[in-house]
């Protein structure tokens, strides 16, 4: 290698003596530091109003620099924890993984990088909209779709396609395979925001983690701690948990309900028995009567029985299950899954007294005499009527009797309900969709084609029904007329020709009270020779005698109870479920659990004082 050697060549460097220095003066570092580049990972900034306190940032932080600190000025509310992240800049390594995993997208990084203080306490900072340092109000690093550390897309659920689905009552959703369930469970960050929102406070992160670990027994045990009907819930729960799921802030919420169903479907029988029998105590504490075999009644029976009470459950219909048995169609909840939950209750020793209507076959007072306590959960078996012109026509049908008849037909216990070739359903909730989609299937069977129109006051975007109900219904050929109010039924030669409608401009007033406003100019008629009304359910308090009603408070038809389900004015009587909270499966299960604990406390304290 040839080497050039020149004593003078290093002196060329002198020309730089006359150029502007590229370095920065030291004294400027604190107040006027060099500006960071775009994307710089500086000190954090956090939009505190957008942040939901899920703690994913603290969870992923490799240096454990983030602590979730409770803010006293924030209220406990649904869908968030009143905590916000606080950074220890003595530990933080500015890797920005907290930013990349942030569920709400509120956490970002500013361009500030100088924090000069002799006080170590000042290194603990709860980031706010801007950081108190030069450049702290300029956005530096923010996540991009490719740097996102969350999985925003759900594992796909295998399902029967719409055109095929409407030909039978076969369950539409096929259920997750093990791979799908594990992939879905891996999306959960375990923030527990869902737990707070679930009426039953189910141990959701725990059983999702169990699915992810492949430990079904643990998942089952976690579920039965707060919910003895996971099979029913896994199919038809209103999943408030998914509505508030932190992953749902930017993507699709974790399919909590389907993961529950995965455990139920895949746990072997022996495991089921082992897990379920474990907490059951020997009977001998006392006797409790449960009125109504719906979700609330079954739930209360399970917990009362595990606590050691002898439980008799009174059911008016031939089978227990309530709405799950006589309302929800089989394509959403097949009998087998329901039977599995019910049989297990029978196995632990709950006695079912079916075809026994309290108030008719046995009085409430008789129950009071025979048992130590009574739990009332008779539900809402009646359909709410709608005042319509010609509304008393025999071809105007109501949701609850129709669904019960259709369900009986599906299990081979009754005749096929007579459905017309063209039918109109009034209502926008899940029950209306159940009715409409059941009619579709019956029509398909009877005529080979279907024609059902659904009329609702609400427009499609604010329909109270679940989105998947709407989408599946539409895929099956349901004609939705959203945003119309029913006016009257048009008759022709004594038969129904159709439903007269009028455009609905708004459903609620400013205070969110129900107060529909119609535009009388925009009229229309929807064809159909039968009209089904599905605008809500009502209770049936036939078992309350006038003496009861003197002591027991009813408000808007709802039984008034305390936090433990104890009826005000009758300490031996507890109530829960739809007659207390309105129609909702998971609320019923939660009420059953609460009332069981309430009854236990009541009976224990009574025996102590006696």
């Amino acid at each position: 290698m040839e080497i050039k050697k020149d004593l003078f060549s290093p002196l060329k460097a002198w020309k730089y003596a006359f150029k502007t220095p590229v370095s920065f003066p030291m004294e400027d570092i604190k107040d006027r530091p060099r500006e960071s580049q775009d994307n710089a990972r500086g000190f954090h900034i956090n939009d505190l109003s957008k942040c939901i306190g899920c703690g994913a940032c603290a969870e992923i932080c490799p240096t454990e620099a983030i602590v979730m600190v409770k803010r006293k000025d924030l209220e406990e509310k649904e869908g968030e924890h009143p905590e916000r992240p606080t950074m220890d800049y003595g530990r933080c390594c500015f890797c920005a993984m907290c930013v990349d995993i942030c569920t709400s997208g509120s956490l970002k990084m500013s361009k500030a990088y100088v924090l000069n203080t002799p006080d170590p306490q000042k290194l603990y900072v709860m980031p706010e909209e801007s950081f108190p340092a030069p450049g702290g109000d300029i956005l530096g690093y923010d996540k991009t779709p490719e740097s996102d550390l969350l999985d925003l897309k759900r594992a796909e659920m295998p399902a029967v396609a719409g055109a095929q689905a409407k030909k039978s009552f076969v369950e539409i959703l096929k259920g997750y395979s093990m791979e799908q369930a594990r992939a879905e469970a891996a999306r959960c960050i375990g923030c527990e925001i869902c737990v707070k929102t679930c009426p039953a406070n189910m141990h959701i992160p725990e059983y999702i983690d169990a699915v992810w670990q492949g430990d079904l027994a643990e998942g089952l045990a976690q579920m039965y701690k707060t919910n003895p009907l996971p099979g029913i819930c896994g199919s038809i729960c209103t999943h408030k948990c998914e509505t508030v799921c932190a992953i749902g802030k930017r993507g699709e919420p974790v399919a909590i309900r389907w993961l529950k169903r995965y455990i139920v479907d895949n746990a072997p029988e022996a495991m089921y028995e082992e897990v379920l029998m474990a907490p059951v105590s020997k009977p001998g504490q006392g006797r409790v009567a449960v009125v109504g075999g719906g979700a609330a009644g079954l739930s209360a029976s399970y917990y009362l029985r595990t606590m050691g009470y002898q439980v008799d459950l009174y059911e008016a219909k031939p089978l227990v299950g309530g709405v799950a048995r006589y309302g929800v169609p089989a394509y959403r909840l097949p009998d087998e899954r329901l039977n599995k939950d019910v049989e297990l209750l029978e196995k632990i020793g709950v006695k079912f007294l079916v075809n026994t209507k309290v108030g008719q076959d046995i009085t409430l007072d008789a129950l009071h005499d025979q048992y130590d306590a009574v739990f009332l959960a008779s539900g809402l078996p009646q359909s709410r009527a709608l005042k319509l012109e010609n509304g008393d026509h025999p071809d105007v049908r109501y949701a609850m009797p129709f669904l019960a008849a259709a369900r009986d037909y599906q299990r081979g216990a009754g005749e096929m309900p007579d459905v017309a070739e063209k039918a109109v359903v009034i209502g926008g909730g899940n029950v209306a969709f159940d009715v409409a989609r059941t009619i579709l299937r019956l029509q398909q069977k009877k005529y080979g084609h279907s024609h059902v129109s659904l009329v609702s006051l609400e427009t499609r975007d604010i329909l109270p029904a679940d989105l998947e109900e709407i989408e599946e219904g539409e895929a099956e050929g349901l004609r939705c007329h959203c945003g119309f109010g029913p006016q009257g039924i048009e008759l022709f030669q004594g038969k129904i020709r159709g439903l007269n409608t009028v455009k609905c401009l708004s459903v609620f007033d400013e205070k969110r009270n129900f107060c529909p406003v119609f535009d009388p100019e925009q009229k229309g008629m929807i064809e159909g020779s039968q009209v089904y009304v599905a605008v809500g359910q009502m209770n049936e308090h036939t078992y309350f005698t006038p003496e009861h009603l003197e002591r027991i408070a009813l408000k808007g038809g709802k039984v008034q109870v305390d936090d433990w389900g104890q009826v005000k004015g009758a300490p031996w009587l507890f109530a829960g479920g739809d007659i207390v909270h309105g129609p909702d499966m998971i609320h019923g299960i939660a009420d059953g659990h609460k009332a069981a604990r309430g009854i236990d406390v009541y009976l224990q304290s009574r025996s102590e004082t006696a």
Partner: protein
Amino acid sequence: MSEVKLFFGPQHPGMHGNASVHLYVEGDTVKKARLVPGMLHRGFEKSMENHTWMGNVALIPRVCVAEPDINEMVFAQGVEAIAEIDIPERAHYIRMIIMEMTRILAHMMSLGAISSPTGLYTVNHWMQADRNDMMDIFEEITGHRVYHMYIVPGGVRRELPPGIEKRILDYFTEFERRIPEYQALVFENPTILARLKDNILLPAEVVWELGVTGIGMRSAVGKPYDVRKVTPYARYDQVEFEVPVATYSDAYTRSIFKVIEIKESIRIIRQAFDMMPGGKVNVKMAAGNALKWTVPKGQTYSAVESARGEFGYYIVSDGKTQPYRIAVRGASFPQGFLGVERYMPGVRLDDAPLWYDTMGVCTPEIDR
């Protein structure tokens, strides 16, 4: 004359990182050298077992401070090999650009470090100023100047910012104009040449005995052993570049090789920008969110060519969210650990820092 014991490091301007070497000196000749490891030991290998696969991305760059991206690259490559992940084509090219830029940064650092033992601090000032501009470019791409945390299992963390290609290429055009100035300042300078030329020899036997790789090996035994050539990773088989070799390894050869390698790296970066396809820059390494990413059971040895030689990770996964074991093959381990004790004796005391620098030693990868 009696023997004097001197402490070279851990705090010493000529020391790279915080290694400590006890020198036993007679006159101004080193008679005995003892490396005292542990001054920089932070238990990285053990710590890696306690971090999630993604959390490790924030930890591993620290294994070599001057050239952090090699850690990210071997880690990402290893994980991809165990999990059998195919990453998008564009990610390979971005990785290659990042790897070459970081190689240049490391070479500039060690060329600048010639300055303090030879007494010409201007070199270091220039090199640091030029490095500063490059680190600004890194800050724009990755968000940080030193620990980039950019190459992740599955690709790279995010897309290149718009307009960065021009900024990088403009920088190198300017830097290439500066290379002759560096040449004039350092390699034509008789005072520095007197210290480098025919001084601090690395004989071929030592290379074979210790397992020295990288510039040290190539300059001593004349074999173009370069991981980029022998087992090409990323897309090094798609680009053209030369690997300089020689059969006489003195401090001068090893230093001038760094200049040649910088030029070759710039050539690779230009080709990579020309050939880089569009499309995605990463795939998710596993299902779910980063807290629950797992890597299937398996083990692998993954290696890249660092500025100092073959740098590798041996990764074992037991199928959980954290690695079971990671062992680091530090590129400078042979010369920096064994070599100091065996082959530093004989050099003059004032050449000890030069020995350390030109042999290519990065202390944290020994003291991991």
